[in-house]
């Protein structure tokens, strides 16, 4: 997967991060924080390579 951006997104009450909004293979995706999710697992590998998930706005 080609991950070019990743940013946390928070719930409506602004209490917790809900997902990562990422651009993967040129497509905007809302990726849940579930290690069994294939895209989230790829994002964690991407982070392990030195990349950073941006904080939520």
């Amino acid at each position, binding site marked *: *997967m080609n991950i070019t951006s990743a940013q946390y997104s928070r719930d*409506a009450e602004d209490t917790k991060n*809900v*997902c990562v909004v990422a651009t993967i*293979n040129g*497509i*905007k995706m809302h990726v*849940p924080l579930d290690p069994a999710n*294939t*895209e989230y697992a790829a994002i964690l590998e991407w982070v392990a390579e030195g990349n950073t998930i941006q904080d939520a706005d």
Partner: protein
Amino acid sequence: MSKAAELAALIGSQTALSNRNFIINGAMQVAQRGTSTTSITSDTYPACDRWHTQINSCGTWTASQSTTVPSGQGFTSSFKLECTTADASPAAGDYVLLNQRIEAQNLQNLAFGTSSAKAITLSFWIRSNKTGTIATEVYHHDASKHFNSNFTIDSADTWEHKKITIDGNTADIINNDNGIGFLVYWWFASGSSYNTSQSTGTWNNTNANRATTYNLADTVGNEVYVTGVQLEIGEQATPFEHRPYADELASCMRYYQTAVPSTGDVFGTRMLFGGHIVSGNNTFGTVFHIVPMRAAPTITFNNLAFNGYPTGDPTLNGYGLTNFEVYKTANANNNGSYYLFGYEANAEL
């Protein structure tokens, strides 16, 4: 002997009379994402559900759900892969693969990692204009082990039925979880990193262990069709187990679901929320999956339409295996507001 008795005798005591096939959508009936994708140069699910192509710097391809099928076998669809830009000499790390990923917890009756580990048999129909020897592989994900086998396309443009038996693995368990258990591969092209040593027909850790340099990418117009894929317990290939479309669709939906407007049905399939809104307030909506999904899915929104809301995707507010919740903040005060969206929910392995 009746046909049923013949089948029971063929299967023997090794496996069940029904639900034998570990492969989902082996008859290529279901294509929720669409029936064709062009200009493929990388990994994707291009046509038939659950069937994944992996392409690395090795030509350009069109994949489609085809109606070309072996005669008299009861199939209506096949998976077709056609080369549209050639690569006559793949570099070391290049490849063209077709695969299906099988969920680990569905493979527990193989008893891998025990002395009772069962052999399995892969059978499938295949047709290509290019003859030669092709590698298949079952990859045991949790053990990082490969079982490589070769088969031959003997006659061009002719459907052939292939059967490959794979030893049980007594050494390595398959984790009982919702992760990858097996990847079942067809190697239609590969560079030297993947084909430099002889296939041994045993479970091994060598990722170069495929004894063929078959290259479907060498000429524009090369094509391959596959259907009737079955992976089952035992050392014999039984007749393909045809399943009702609805059953196959439900099985596929564990991994991928969508609500995208189709032609002529633009407003019929999108999710909707709205009504009276106040600028600055949030409106919430919940989408229930038709079938519980393997894992919390990645959501991709599409075909947005709105009145009283700003442009852009809704925000994911929660999720699970059975549903997800979204919200959107209104930017107007009115009674006639709406927010429509299509989506894809992807929980593929």
